[in-house]
């Protein structure tokens, strides 16, 4: 068996459906450059045998990735990466992280503990996301 570029895992407490977790893990690997064009994703049988999950979950995740134009299935061979997400936005990560660090430091100085920071971040994140949808 070939060594795969990525290995999937599932978080039972994430609240995300297993199929979305798989989709996200591929996207994340693409963003971080762990997966590149031409790489093969693990076969359905292998993912299923590794995680003890329903085969339809994996098929659905791969179909979604295909629909997004990130991978393509070659019948009888496997599913291959056809695009990359590690684009120019990767360069922006550094400065953004620095700003976020400064913001975190300010939050701590203002007396927020970790839980309060997380709660504040998540509610703001969600409100902003909802406003975008609306």
């Amino acid at each position, binding site marked *: 068996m070939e060594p795969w570029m990525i290995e999937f895992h599932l978080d039972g407490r994430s609240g995300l*459906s297993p199929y979305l977790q798989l989709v996200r893990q591929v996207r994340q690997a693409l963003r971080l450059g762990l997966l590149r064009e031409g790489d093969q994703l693990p076969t359905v049988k292998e993912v*299923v045998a590794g995680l003890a999950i329903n085969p*339809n979950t994996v098929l659905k995740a791969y179909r979604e990735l295909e629909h997004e134009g990130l991978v393509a299935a070659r019948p009888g061979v496997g599913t291959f990466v056809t695009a990359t997400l590690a684009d120019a936005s990767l360069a922006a990560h550094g400065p953004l992280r620095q700003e976020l660090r400064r913001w975190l430091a300010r939050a701590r100085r203002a007396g927020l503990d970790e839980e309060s920071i997380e709660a504040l971040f998540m509610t703001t994140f969600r409100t902003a996301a909802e406003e975008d949808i609306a």
Partner: protein
Amino acid sequence: MTAVIEAQGLGKQYGRRWALSDCTLDIPAGRVVGLVGPNGAGKTTLLHLTVGLLAPTSGSIEVLGGRPAANPAQLAKVGFVAQDSPTYAGLRVADHLKLGARLNPGWDAALARDRIERLGLDPARRAGQLSGGQRAQLALTLGIAKRPELLILDEPVAALDPLARREFLQGLMEATAEHELSVVLSSHLVSDLERACDYLIVLVDSRVRVAGEVEELLATHHRLSGPRRDPARLPAGQHVVAASHTDRQTTLIVRTDAPIHDPAWTVSRLSLEDLVLAYMGKSTHTDHNGRNHRPTLEVQR
């Protein structure tokens, strides 16, 4: 798509007790079906009716388009692994495979051999000397190598430790992916089935409380919490599965196809386990007169 199991008003009576009543199911092919419910709910009865070990007292059941155990062709299409991974303690692993080959017309000898080898089971060992996990894997191997269209397993992982449990489900899911099997497995623990199943049947007190695609069930059930109010005054189309109240607050598990717009409710998603527990109706609530009520459980499609 053709139905794997189609039951109409299916029931089984023992003496005066109904072990299964008024069971109507229509399960499409290619699913991994989880049958959950407390011990004694009627899971084994339903499975035995499906494989033809029992005959119905009322109603009808068709499996893969035929009457269970009606003829050799029907028997060959359905695999069954009974509770406690049945094997013959005095027979060697190799004898089990030989027996499987003799008893099953569609026996896949290469698959069986290959699987036993990958599991690291010594063909010369007697089944009685194997660990619980190994015995379960041997029983599963027999079930898969029969090459059925539908494989039915009664509480296959209940007696296994967490590692053996995981390995068993890995093997089962691998076979499902490889051979396009339909599978029905029962468990009294939904956590065993959460990842493996895409279709769920909840059976409580001899009745099917809810059955459907897992994804659809998760999308249509919500937990609502908000200021105390009477669940009877919810909009039409919102079925209360379970309700609990404090003096000030009401918490409901609701099934609905439409989005919930009432801003008074905080709406949250349910895990599969929460959903099953709601239908099992463990929680009781107190009404205005202080009487305890079982939650309404009539929700069924």
